[in-house]
């Protein structure tokens, strides 16, 4: 084993676990030493192709026996808490898929634990690593559209377009399933990233359309004490979207900006000579802000995010774009949404 490499264990080998394995295995300073999953079939397939890999059905054994420097957690969210706590006790760096936990108190406890340690801790809100959204944030931070007054955040996908049986973990809110935890958490996190944590939440309405036990659509209003207000609308049952789509529109005192994965448009009430922006509409595409990613699998965001985690451990990067303390903000907002919401059964 190469002593200069970080040893990583992956816990949970579903869609994201598989993606993370592929991405981080491309990093020259990483060695994946172990994988844990409840599916013995998955583990035996992995073992068949990689004889040196240690495989476990118990995450505790993975941590104790394969002694990774860091773990990547991609289990259903209700398992995040015990796994992260165990990793903390053993001094292991943690990257964990979103949402952080399926319960605000657990997220608070874990955040406090890691705040008093030197362990790198990160939650997989990958949208923070998108080139276009980061450019939009930069422009908003520079006050190019003046003071932000209103925003509108939307996300769509065609993930659930048929009645579900209710057996999958995704169909259970206590497990962290449902459109609020799984999908709207991305948007809420993005709002936290752009504007900080909202002070209040109002008018949360959830629709149950196809899922047996959880919501498929949600809308809500986020309110800041400084006067900024925004609405969110998230729908994972919209068949008109071939691929997941995220868009954020921000109205400010000097103009507005509309950003999605593909590009951004700025409308300005006055020309901005410094940034070479016209009065009126200015359109830019992903290609205008694109930064190459070291290894491309399913979008650069996932790679940039996981490489950020590894570079933080190696000491090559200092800025953690989404540590536990950041992700806790989203847990608090979701908690507020759940406390006061109306559910409609369609």
């Amino acid at each position, binding site marked *: 084993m190469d002593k200069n490499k970080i040893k990583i264990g992956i816990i949970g080998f*579903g*869609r994201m676990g*598989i*993606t993370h*394995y*592929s*991405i981080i*295995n*491309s990093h020259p300073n990483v060695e994946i030493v172990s994988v844990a999953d409840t*599916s013995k*079939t*998955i583990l*035996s*397939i992995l073992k*068949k*192709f*990689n004889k040196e890999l240690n495989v476990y059905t118990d995450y505790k054994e993975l941590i104790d026996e394969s002694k990774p420097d860091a773990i990547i957690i991609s289990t259903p969210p209700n398992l995040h808490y015990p796994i992260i706590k165990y990793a903390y006790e053993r001094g292991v760096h943690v990257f964990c898929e979103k949402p952080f936990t399926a319960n605000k108190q657990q997220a608070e406890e874990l955040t406090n634990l890691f705040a008093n340690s030197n362990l790198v801790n990160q939650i997989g809100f990958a949208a923070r690593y998108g080139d276009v959204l980061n450019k939009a944030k930069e422009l908003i931070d520079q006050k190019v559209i003046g003071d932000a007054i209103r925003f509108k955040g939307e996300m769509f996908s*065609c*993930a*659930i377009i*048929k009645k*579900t049986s209710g057996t*999958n973990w*995704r169909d259970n809110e206590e497990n962290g399933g449902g459109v609020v935890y799984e999908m709207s958490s991305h948007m809420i996190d993005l709002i936290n990233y752009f504007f900080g944590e909202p002070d209040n939440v109002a008018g949360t309405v959830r629709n149950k359309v196809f899922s047996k036990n959880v919501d498929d659509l949600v809308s809500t209003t986020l309110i800041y004490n400084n006067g900024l207000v925004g609405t969110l609308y998230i729908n994972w049952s919209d068949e*008109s979207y*071939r*691929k997941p*789509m995220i868009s954020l529109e921000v109205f400010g005192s000097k103009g507005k900006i509309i950003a*999605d994965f*593909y*590009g951004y448009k700025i409308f300005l009430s006055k020309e901005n000579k410094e940034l070479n922006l016209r009065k009126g509409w200015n359109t830019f*595409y*992903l*290609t*205008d802000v*694109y930064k*190459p*990613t*070291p*290894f*491309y*699998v*399913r979008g*650069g965001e996932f*790679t940039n995010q996981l490489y950020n985690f590894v570079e933080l451990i190696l000491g090559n990067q200092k800025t953690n774009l989404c540590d536990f303390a950041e992700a806790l903000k989203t847990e608090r907002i979701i908690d507020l949404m759940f406390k006061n919401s109306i559910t409609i059964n369609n």
Partner: protein
Amino acid sequence: MNQIDKIVFGDNQFFGINHMSQEKAQQLSEQFYKIQNIFNVYDIAIDCGIKAIMLNSNQRAIDICDYFRKNESKYSDLNWYPSIPYPHKYANIISEKGIFPAINELLFSNNTASGVLGMIAKGSSAIFTKDVIKLMQMLIDAEVKMFKGLNIKVIFLQNVVTDLLLGFGIKEVFEEYCSYIENKYKVIPGLITLNLPYCITKLKEWNIKNVVICSSINKIGFTMSPNIASYEEIILNNNPNEYQIMAMSTLASGAIPPIEAYEYINNQNIQSVVFGASSKKHIEETVRLLKG
């Protein structure tokens, strides 16, 4: 290695795929709602001298393949470059059901009755003995089935799958894929990747040759990982007898004007270009610029 066509006509425009704009994608999907409109564009492309078509194995490709089979006499000298699978179908079913139920559904639904029986006979042993290679071969067969009877030149593995597997770094999977395509279908194996330097380096390390590699290649380095300089270096030093290279995304989703884009492409050591367009003007222009 059999030489591939220098110009290949792609299919993104037909399936509401546009990497630059959701609105443009929507407009294209309406324009090509009527499948006859797709055939009309193919006819324009063929009139412009196109002799090769790349087509992803999505639902609509089934009807497209049917049409070309039925009109074989009219289209007898076309070469086909299927890419498999259609990844969004897999991604959605996997999220909903988990990996194994998803594979089960993909293999055993949407097949004719006789096909299903044969596949189940093979499939039960494949799944229960955890014979992944066999399973992979069955998935390939299920995807390639719609292209049967067409003159296939290369079978490409779609980039999400190629790149995911490249990251895993498992030599055997690539060896088995390539040999299965060569031996069963008697065509050249192809890999679509957004990590061309990584891909070629790995294939060399594994001594896997005679592969067509299709990758984004454009003047501004868009979706070229890790960076354009690495691409230029590996392309310059590439031996086309080992790996034929096909460029895609040459216009970087429209960010580069065609003249500039193809001037760059024509100066690279590559064997082929795949492009998509939906108007006569753009198809003619592209063919003219690529021929230099």
